[in-house]
């Protein structure tokens, strides 16, 4: 495990397309990059027993989650030859159609960027202590569980 500073992955509310664009633009000075892969999680308006999800209210065990994200990041750098990676996850309310997860990997060649991105997404889904309360239009809710 490296001595790198543990980053805060969480952003309040949805991740905006503008933030994604700005993150892409920041990589244009890195001219050893040939391929980027970006995964975005978007809140679905699922129908559940006749009610429709309006939003998800995300909460996390934040300190542990940031540690876990840090470990996942270090493992990904060890496994794949990538130039850089970024992870952002929402906390608080994210409405249906809005983005709650942004995973961004870059590499000289496409295979590493794509393999690393997929690995990160699976690891995040399995290991990050993040919780989602699906809110319905009638103010009832249910707790989301990752498939």
């Amino acid at each position, binding site marked *: 495990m490296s001595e790198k500073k543990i980053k805060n992955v969480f952003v309040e509310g949805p991740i905006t397309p503008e933030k994604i664009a700005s993150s892409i633009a920041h990589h244009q000075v890195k001219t050893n990059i040939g391929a980027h892969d970006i995964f975005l999680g978007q809140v679905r308006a699922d129908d559940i027993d006749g009610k429709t999800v309006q939003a998800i209210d995300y909460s*996390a065990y934040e300190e542990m989650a940031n540690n876990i994200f840090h470990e996942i990041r270090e493992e990904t750098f060890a496994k794949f030859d990538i130039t850089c990676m970024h992870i952002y996850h929402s906390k608080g309310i994210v409405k249906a159609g809005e983005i709650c997860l942004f995973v961004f990997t870059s590499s000289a060649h496409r295979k590493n960027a794509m393999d690393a991105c997929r690995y990160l997404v699976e690891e995040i889904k399995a290991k*990050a202590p993040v919780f989602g309360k699906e809110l319905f239009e009638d103010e009832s809710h249910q707790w989301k569980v990752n498939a």
Partner: protein
Amino acid sequence: MTLELKYLGMIAEAVGKQEEQLTISVKTVEGLCDYLITEHEQLKNHKFKIAVNHKLVESNFLLNNNDEVALLPPFAGG
């Protein structure tokens, strides 16, 4: 000993609080869980994992004074 308990997600909802300080005489995570389930019967209906000081642990994990113990329901990140 004294433990800092953290309840997350649907567990917080089930027990009606997000955290508490608990002074209790137990040795293992299993002992603590047995106690918590008698205190909060509704926990029986929930699956959860235990993290001590931000690391997932097994039920035979030995607790220490001032440990932070979190009850984590199924994850839903992303």
